[in-house]
C-alpha cells in the first residue's frame, strides 16, 4: 500500500492563479495542424520504455479508476483539457488551446484544438467534451471524480458553444477552476455512448476487452494486456503534440507496464535493468541502489521533500453518542493544548528522519512541506526537541510523576495507544519511535498496527481509537486540494470529522480562512490566508506534523528528457517527451 493511503488525486481542486488565465487568442483558421509544440531537447523516435506497477491496473476507464496503477496507465492513454505542468506546478493548455474566464469568475469558455483525432482515428470535438462531463457528473455512475466537479454544492454545467468551443458554468466563483480540469480525461463519445446509454458503463473498458475497443487522446494507445503480467501501450500516431523541431510526439514506440507486486521486487528489477524508471520507493532501497549506481546503467534523484506529510493526531471527536468511556476519559488530556504541545516537543523528529528515512526526509511542524515552494510558510517556528520543555508544559498543566510514570491532575496514569496501518512499515516505525520518545516523559504508549480497512473503520466510523499516525499527500500544491481536511465539516478532518458546527474557535477560524481562499483570486492574498491556516495547525496542533519524506526516483541512463517532479506521477509526467537512446 505504501504511501497510497493518501488519497488525493493529482487532479485536485485548485485555484487557477489569475495570471495563468491570460487568454491566448484562439488562432483563426481550421488548420489541421493545431498541434501543441513543446520546448525541450528533441529526442529519438522509437524504442520501448519499461516501467513497473505495484499492481495491475484494475480498469482503463478514467471515470471509474480509483487506484494509482490504473490512473498511471490511463494518464498515458488520455488527455485533459487544461493540464498542470508538473515541473512548474502551473496550468498550461492541453486539449483546450485557450480559455476565457468571465468577469465574475463563474464562466469558463474553452477553445478546443482542431483537427485532433482519437487514437483510433476518430475526430475529436466539443461533443466528446460534453459527453465526458455528462458521464463524470452522472450520479448513477458514481464516478469518484464527480465530487471534484461539484462547486458550491452544484455540479458544473457544460454547454457546447460550437464544434470546438465549450462553456463551463459554476454556481459560485471558483478560483482554482483551471486546475480542476487536470486529469479529467476526455472520453471518445463514439465508443462509450452506447454502453453509457445501455447502462453497462460500470463494466465498460475493463481490461478484458479487446484493444480496439479503447481509444483516447493520450500519447499512447493500448496494444496488449496480459493478465497478471503486463500491459503494453503503443505510440498513438494521432497524438497532438510535437517537439520544436516539428517531430511528432511521443518519441517512444512502446511503453510497457510490468506488474511487480512489491516495492522490493520493483527495486530489484530496476537494479537488474528490467525496468527503466522507478519512483515511490523507500530511502533504504535508495541507499541499496545508490551503492551500485556507478556500475549499473542507472541514476537516482532525490528531489527533496514532496507533498506528503506524516503526523500524529489524537481522537478529539465528540464521543457522547458512542459508548467509549475509556477513551472519553482520556480525551481530557488530548483536548489540553499543553498536553499536545508537550507531546510535540518530546518527539524526536530528527530521529525519525534518520532512523525511518535514512536522512532522506525533512522534519516538519505544519502541513505544508518545504517542497511546496508556492505555499510554504517560512515563519512557522521549528523548535528543537526538548524533553525538558515537554515536562515543563505538562507540569504547568497539572501533571506530575509517580515512580517515573506520568499521572494527570486526577491521579490517573497517562497511557494511550497509537493506531498505525500494519501494512505501512514506515508509519509503524514512526509510532515505535514516538513510543520510545514518550516513555521518556513517563507515558506508556501501545502501538496498535491494524489492517488498513480496520483502521479506517475506527477513524471514520466507530471513533474507537486514542491516537493515530497517518500521512496525507496533497494531490496538488494548491491548498484547495486540502479543503476536506481543514474544514470542520470535512470528512477528512481526521481528528474530528463531519462537525455540524466548529467545535473550537480555532477550527471556526480555519473554516473561514479556507473558504475565503477558495474564492480569492489573488495569489498573495490567498497565500496570506493559507499561512494563517498553517500557523493555526502549528499552534493548536490538531495534528502534530512530523516528517515529510523526500521524493526519490531513479531512471536508466538511456532514458532521455527524464525530468522527475515532486507531484504525482513523479517520473513519467512527461512521458510524451521521454525517449530512449
Amino acid at each position, binding site marked *: 500500500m505504501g504511501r497510497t493511503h493518501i488519497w488525493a488525486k493529482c487532479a485536485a481542486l485548485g485555484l487557477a492563479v489569475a495570471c495563468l488565465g491570460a487568454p491566448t487568442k484562439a488562432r483563426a483558421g481550421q488548420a489541421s495542424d493545431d498541434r501543441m509544440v513543446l520546448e525541450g531537447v528533441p529526442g529519438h523516435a522509437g524504442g520501448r520504455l519499461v516501467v513497473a506497477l505495484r499492481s495491475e491496473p484494475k480498469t482503463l476507464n478514467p471515470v471509474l479508476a480509483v487506484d494509482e496503477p490504473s490512473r498511471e496507465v490511463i494518464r498515458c492513454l488520455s488527455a485533459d483539457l487544461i493540464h498542470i505542468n508538473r515541473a512548474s506546478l502551473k496550468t498550461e493548455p492541453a486539449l483546450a488551446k485557450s480559455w476565457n474566464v468571465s468577469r465574475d469568475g463563474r464562466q469558463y469558455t474553452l477553445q478546443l484544438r482542431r483537427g485532433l483525432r482519437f487514437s483510433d482515428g476518430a475526430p475529436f470535438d466539443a461533443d466528446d467534451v460534453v459527453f465526458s462531463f455528462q458521464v463524470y457528473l452522472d450520479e448513477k455512475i458514481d464516478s469518484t471524480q464527480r465530487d471534484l466537479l461539484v462547486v458550491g454544492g452544484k455540479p458544473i454545467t457544460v454547454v457546447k458553444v460550437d464544434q470546438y468551443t465549450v462553456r463551463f458554468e459554476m454556481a459560485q466563483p471558483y478560483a482554482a477552476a483551471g486546475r480542476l480540469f487536470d486529469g479529467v480525461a476526455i472520453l471518445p463519445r463514439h465508443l462509450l455512448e452506447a454502453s453509457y446509454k445501455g447502462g453497462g458503463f460500470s463494466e465498460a473498458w475493463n481490461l478484458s476487452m479487446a484493444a480496439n475497443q479503447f481509444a483516447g487522446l493520450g500519447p499512447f494507445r493500448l496494444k*496488449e494486456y496480459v493478465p497478471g503480467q503486463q500491459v503494453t501501450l503503443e505510440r498513438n500516431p494521432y497524438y497532438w503534440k510535437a517537439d520544436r523541431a516539428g517531430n511528432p510526439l511521443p518519441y517512444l514506440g512502446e511503453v510497457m507496464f510490468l506488474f511487480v507486486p512489491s516495492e522490493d521486487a520493483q527495486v530489484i528489477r530496476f537494479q537488474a535493468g528490467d525496468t527503466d524508471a522507478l519512483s515511490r520507493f523507500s530511502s533504504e532501497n535508495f541507499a541499496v541502489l545508490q551503492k551500485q549506481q556507478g556500475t549499473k546503467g542507472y541514476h537516482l534523484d532525490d528531489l527533496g521533500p514532496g507533498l506528503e506529510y506524516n503526523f500524529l493526531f489524537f481522537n478529539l471527536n465528540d464521543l457522547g453518542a458512542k459508548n467509549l468511556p475509556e477513551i472519553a476519559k482520556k480525551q481530557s488530556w488530548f483536548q489540553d493544548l499543553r498536553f499536545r504541545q508537550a507531546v510535540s516537543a518530546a518527539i524526536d523528529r530528527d530521529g525519525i528522519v534518520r532512523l525511518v528515512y535514512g536522512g532522506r526526509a525533512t522534519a516538519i511542524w505544519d502541513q505544508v512541506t518545504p517542497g511546496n515552494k508556492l505555499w510554504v510558510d517560512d515563519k512557522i517556528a521549528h523548535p528543537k526537541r526538548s524533553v525538558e520543555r515537554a515536562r515543563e508544559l505538562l507540569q504547568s498543566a497539572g501533571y506530575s510523576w509517580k515512580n517515573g510514570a506520568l499521572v494527570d491532575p486526577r491521579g490517573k496514569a497517562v497511557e494511550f495507544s497509537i493506531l498505525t496501518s500494519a501494512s505501512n512499515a514506515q508509519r509503524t516505525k514512526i509510532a515505535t519511535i514516538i513510543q520510545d520518545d514518550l516513555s521518556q516523559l513517563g507515558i506508556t504508549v501501545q502501538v496498535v498496527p491494524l489492517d488498513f480497512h480496520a483502521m479506517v473503520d475506527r477513524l471514520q466510523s466507530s471513533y474507537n481509537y486514542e491516537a493515530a499516525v497517518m500521512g496525507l499527500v496533497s494531490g496538488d500544491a494548491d491548498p484547495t486540494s486540502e479543503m476536506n481536511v481543514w474544514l470542520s465539516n470535512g470528512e477528512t478532518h481526521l481528528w474530528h470529522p463531519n462537525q455540524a458546527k466548529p467545535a473550537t474557535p480555532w477550527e471556526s477560524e480555519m473554516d473561514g480562512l479556507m473558504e475565503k481562499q477558495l474564492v480569492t483570486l489573488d495569489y498573495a492574498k490567498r497565500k496570506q490566508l493559507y499561512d494563517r491556516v498553517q500557523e493555526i495547525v502549528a499552534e493548536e496542533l490538531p495534528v502534530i506534523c512530523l516528517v515529510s519524506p523526500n521524493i526519490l526516483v531513479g531512471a536508466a541512463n538511456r532514458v532521455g528528457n527524464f525530468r522527475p517532479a515532486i507531484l504525482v506521477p513523479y517520473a513519467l509526467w512527461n512521458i510524451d517527451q521521454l525517449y530512449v537512446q
Partner: protein
Amino acid sequence: MTRYLTRRLAHAALLLLAVSVFSFALLQLAPGDFFAPLKLNPQISARTVEGLRAQYGLDRPWPVRYGHWLRGVFHGDLGPSFAYNSPVAPLLAVRARNTLLLTGTAMLWAWLIAIPLGIVSAVRRGKWSDRAGGVVTSALLTIPDLVLFLAILLLAVRSGWFPTGGMVSTAFGELSGRGRAMDIAYHLFLPALALAIATLPALVRHIRSAMIEVLQAPFIRAARAHGISEYRVLLRYALPVAANPLISLFGFSVATMLSASLLVEVILSWPGIGPLLLEAILAKDVYVVLGTVMLSSVFLVLGNLVADLLLFAVDPRIRMES
C-alpha cells in the same frame, strides 16, 4: 467405479459448499470493506462511497449476498471484483493457469529429486551419507520459506544469471514460438526451483520413511534370499509398494505446494493467483478472495481425487476389491 466417483464428487461438492459458506462468513468478520479507504480521500464524498456500496450490493446482509453469489456460481459467475470492475472468473482463469504451470513444474522437479534422494537415504539408512542428508533436509525444514525465497532472490540479483521476476521478458512479443517457450522456461526456472526446494525436505523425509518401511517387509528379504540384485529389489519390488503411501502423500502435498507457491509468486513476481490473492485480501476485494479460496479448494479436492485414482491404477489390491 462410476458409482464411487459420483459419491466422491458429491462429497467434494459438499465440502466446497461448506468452504464457501464459512469463507463468506469469515470474510465479513474483519471490519471495513473495499470502499472504506475511499472515505479518507478528501475528494470523495460519503454519498459517492455509499453509492458504490449499493451498486455492488454491499449494503445488504451477508446471507443475502451469499445466496446471490451462489446462484451466480451455478451460472459460471463468481461474482464481481470491486477493484477490477469485472467478473472474477476471467481474472482467475489466466492466473490459475500460471500458478498451475509453476506448481506443476515445481512438483515434478521436487518429486524427481526427492524420490532418488529418499530411496538412497533409505537404502543407506544410518550411514553417514544418510545422516548428512538428514541434517541437510532438517536444516532446510527449519529455514522459513520466506527467508529461503528471499535468499534465492538475492542470488538472482547478485549473480545476474536469472531474471528477477515476471514470467516473460519484455521482448517476448518479438520472439518465435520456440523462443517464447525458452523464455518462459528461463523465467520459470528460479521460482520453480525455489518452490521445489521448499517442498523437498518434507518429501524426502516421507519417501525415506516409506521406503524404510517397505524395505523391512518380509517379501524384500525373500527377494534378497532368492538372489535378486539389490537394484532390482529396489526398483521392481520396493518402489511399487512404497508408491502406495507416496501417492496419498502426493494428494496432500498439493495443498502444501499451493500455499508455498503463494509466497514464491509474491516474492519472485510470478503472475499467478498469489499476488492476486494477497492484493485482494489487503484490499478486501471479497469475491476475488472467495474465488481464490474456492479455486485452491478445488485444486485440493482434485489432488486427492487424482491420488485415489492413481492408487486404484497402481495397487492391484485396491483394484481387485471392487
